[in-house]
């Protein structure tokens, strides 16, 4: 399985990668710092699961989400965001995300996510 972690924060990316590695022995993990980079990785690597932040420079998660699914309709996108407003959750689900999870993500929360998807 290939995983893509998209977040402009190094801390958030490190935290997601660590929690992924705690749950999956041989995870192939790619990283991107915004939506533009995420689209490039989606083109080149076709990751199966994408962890996507919403508030990012260049291209935010709302804009990137449908474009990622356009490139690979089979990818599962989990939005990982600090924006926990009900309307934000509804919006990303309508755009095609499988899940909306509140930041920060630890190993237990990651296990929950992986069990669900």
């Amino acid at each position, binding site marked *: 399985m290939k995983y893509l972690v998209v977040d402009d*924060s190094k801390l958030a990316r490190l935290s997601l990668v660590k929690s992924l590695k705690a749950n999956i022995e041989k995870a192939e993990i790619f990283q991107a710092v915004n939506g533009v980079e995420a689209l490039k990785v989606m083109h080149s690597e076709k990751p199966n699961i994408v962890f996507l932040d919403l508030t990012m420079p260049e291209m935010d998660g709302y804009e990137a989400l449908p474009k990622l699914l356009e490139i690979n309709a089979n990818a599962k996108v989990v939005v990982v965001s600090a924006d926990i*407003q009900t309307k934000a959750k509804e919006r990303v689900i309508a755009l095609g995300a499988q899940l909306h999870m509140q*930041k920060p993500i630890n190993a237990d929360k990651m296990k929950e996510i992986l069990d669900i998807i």
Partner: protein
Amino acid sequence: MQVFDLTEDEKDVLQELMNVAYGNATAVVAEMLDAFASLSIPNIKVIQTDELLATFSELKSESYFFSTQAFNGEFKGESAFFINQTSANNLAKHLELESSEDLDDAILELTNVLTSTLTTKLSQEMDTEVSFSLPSLSKIPLQEIGKTSAFKHYSQVIVIDTDLNFQDQQIHGKIFILTKDESIQWLKTKLNSILELLI
């Protein structure tokens, strides 16, 4: 006076912690106003107080409501919330408020909920606790900001600023968290320990 600066990694960690805290605070306020807010990326910088006053002057509003709330603990400082007259009027309209007293009260409550939720969550993320003083509200012209007593306690501050932005209701505010000199070294140590745990 010792001059501090934050490394790129320290800024990144603080920005992300602030992002999480602000997300929580915004959700509470959005529910209170029954509206949807768009979130922006927090901006972090260490500056001298006179630069801070210049930053405030960039708000380019002639008249605005300005409220502050001090917090104490290992992490010590003050949060400040600005909302200009137009946004305040839109807030009054949105909440169907009839008098200026009601509007003052609504802004104070908004400040209290916003800044205390924000600072509490930020402190939790850094594994510490803070206590709050009551928020105070003033309506002052821009050129008098330098006379505001809140900023006389600071020589150098870490400023974390972000926007409160309810697009549909045309309500926009700006939030600053100002950290006192004595908290800066504590903050730097804490940010580095958070990062080291992940590497």
